[in-house]
Every structure is written in C-alpha cells, then in structure tokens.
C-alpha cells in the first residue's frame, strides 16, 4: 500500500471519496437485496397459504350458493308492486377486515357509492376496510357496522347474528340491497347487488295473498331470507377475497424476483467498478515510481 502514500494528496482524497462512495453504494445495494429477498419469501408463503385456504373456501361457497338459490327461487314468485314514493333502501356492504387482497374492498366501496348516488339510503357495512373508506365519504348514512368476520370461512350462525343486529338496529326500510363480491373464477371477481324483500312488501305481494297465513309468518320469512342472503354473500365474498389475495401475492413475488435480478446486476457492476478503480490506483501509483 506504500504506493498510495507517494501520490499527490488531492488525488488520494478524490480516490478515497470515490472508493468510499462506491463502497457505500455497494452496501446499500446489498441491504436492499437482502430486504427484497425477505419480502419475496413472505409473499411467496402468503400465496401458498391463500392457495390452500382457497380450496376450502370454494367448497364452502358451492354449498352456500344452494342457500342463496333457494332464497331466489322463493322470491321469484312474489312480484313487488312499485309503490308511488321512493322506497327506503338499506344497503349492506359485505367485505372483510384483512388487507393485501388487491381491489376487493375498493370494489365494494365503489359499488356502494354508485348505488347511493342513484338511490340514496342508509348503510350497514361488514368489514373494517370498506367501513373506513366509506365513513370518509358518507358517515351520516351509517346505521351499524360489523367486523371480526372473514378470518375463517363464515358460518350461518354469524350471518344469522348479523341479520339479527340489522333487524334490531338497522332502522326502517322497504328493501335491502346487499352489495358483495361475486366469485367469477379463480382469478376474477366482480361486485354485485342482491335484493332482499321486506316483511311488509312480502305480505302485500300477489303470490302470498292467495294463501291465508298469520302476520308473523311473513316477518319470520323476511328475517330468514335476510340471514340466507347475507350468508351467501359472506361466503362468496370470502372466496373472492382469498383468490384475490393469492393473485396479489403472486404478483408481488414476481415483482420481487424482477427487482432482485436487476439489483443483483447493479451490485455486480458496482463491485467490478470498485475493483477496477483499485487496480487503476495501484497501477498509476506503480507507474509513477
């Protein structure tokens, strides 16, 4: 190293600065590489977990869809007459609390905002994420919100409890519109609206007038229909969310891999530049002798 000491002071200083800059950048690149590698491991494992959960969620969804189909079948035969004034609508937005699942929650928020713009009404929300998005836009419309749903496959008991709370504290309504994500395939979903009829409208419907029954029966039926519809929406939304999370984590892993490749190249180039500079120093130093 004595060759360094014979060089003019200025050159030494410049070379030292260049070299220290080079070393600092190298260390930075190394740290970035390490952190991106860790992130890739995490997102890959999250994707695997989501894939395994997806099979269970899909199976539950296929069972739950039968509840929803039974519901719809019954109400196909009850046509509601259009009343004169605008019906009071309660919107129920169904999503969940978890993040890292792509555009699931925003799709629900957007659908709710669009529906409220056309036909305003009151709002009940299941899930923390859409709740925070919508409470910034329309806090006055909220009646009741729910959370702590969606970590596991939703059960009918949970749907029944939610329906119970809505009936108790949801205010007055003529119609309920449930806004949830429909599972189209393992890689796509779309928000959709399901209508649930109210007890009053049921009683007035032509199909039911043909039978004699007590008042209470239509009220019970409306409440059961609500629990049914909420259950179907919850389970389908859960499956859609898991598939979206799987896709999002897969994209994140691919992006992380691309970043690692480009960072690795940058690191190699930087390392070679440092070595080349050292060689130049030594050789010019040696030639100066």
């Amino acid at each position, binding site marked *: 190293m004595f060759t360094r000491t014979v060089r003019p002071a200025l050159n030494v200083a410049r070379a030292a600065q260049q070299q220290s800059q080079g070393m600092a950048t190298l260390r930075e690149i190394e740290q970035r590489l390490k952190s991106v590698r860790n992130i890739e491991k995490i997102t890959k494992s999250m994707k695997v977990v989501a894939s395994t959960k997806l099979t269970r969620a899909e199976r539950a969804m296929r069972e739950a869809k039968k509840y929803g189909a039974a519901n719809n079948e019954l109400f196909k035969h009850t046509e509601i007459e259009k009343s004169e004034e605008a019906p009071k609508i309660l919107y129920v937005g169904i999503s969940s609390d978890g993040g890292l699942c792509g555009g699931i929650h925003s799709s629900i928020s957007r659908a709710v905002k669009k529906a409220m713009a056309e036909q305003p009404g009151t709002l009940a929300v299941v899930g923390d994420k859409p709740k925070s998005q919508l409470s910034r836009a329309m806090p006055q419309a909220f009646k009741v919100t729910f959370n702590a749903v969606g970590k596991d496959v939703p*059960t009918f*008991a949970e749907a029944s409890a939610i329906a119970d*709370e809505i009936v108790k504290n949801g205010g007055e309504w003529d119609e309920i519109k449930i806004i949830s994500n429909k599972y189209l395939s393992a890689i796509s979903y779309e928000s959709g609206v399901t209508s649930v009829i109210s007890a009053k409208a049921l009683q007035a419907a032509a199909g039911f007038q043909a039978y004699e029954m007590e008042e209470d029966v239509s009220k019970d039926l409306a409440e059961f229909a609500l629990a049914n519809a909420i259950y179907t929406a919850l389970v389908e939304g859960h499956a859609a969310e898991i598939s979206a999370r799987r896709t999002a984590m897969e994209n994140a892993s691919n992006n992380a891999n691309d970043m690692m490749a480009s960072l690795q190249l940058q690191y190699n180039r930087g390392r070679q530049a440092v070595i080349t500079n050292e060689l130049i120093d030594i050789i010019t130093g040696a030639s100066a002798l």
Partner: protein
Amino acid sequence: MSSTWREFMSWNKYTQVASRALRQALTETDRVAAEKRAAIGVRYQLWENGQGGEQKYVVPQAEPKSAGTPPV
C-alpha cells in the same frame, strides 16, 4: 296465538337459541364438530350522526385462560 318469544327476540335470535340447545344435547364428538360450525366472533358497532359507538361482541368471548404467549 302468537308465541311468547316474539316479545323478546327476532326469528333469527330464536333459531340461534334453539340450535344452541340442540348442540348442547348432542353426544361428545358430534357436539364438538357442531360447536366449531357455530362459533360467532362477530363484533358490531351502532352509528349515530356519523359517529361510531362502542364496539361490542355479539357473543361475549371467553378470556384466554393462559397468561398469553411468551415475550419471545
């Protein structure tokens, strides 16, 4: 004649109570399987004038008996 439960609860609540009674009457293995299907961890929150109220569990959760996970 209207049933007495109508004064106190909705139909959904009524079926929840009835199914809980049925679950508790099952034999051990069936009961455990049924309890898993009936776990309710939902919390709700009433809103008044754009302000959320206190969050309450629909079914109060039992406190975990252990002291919790160790610090590391």
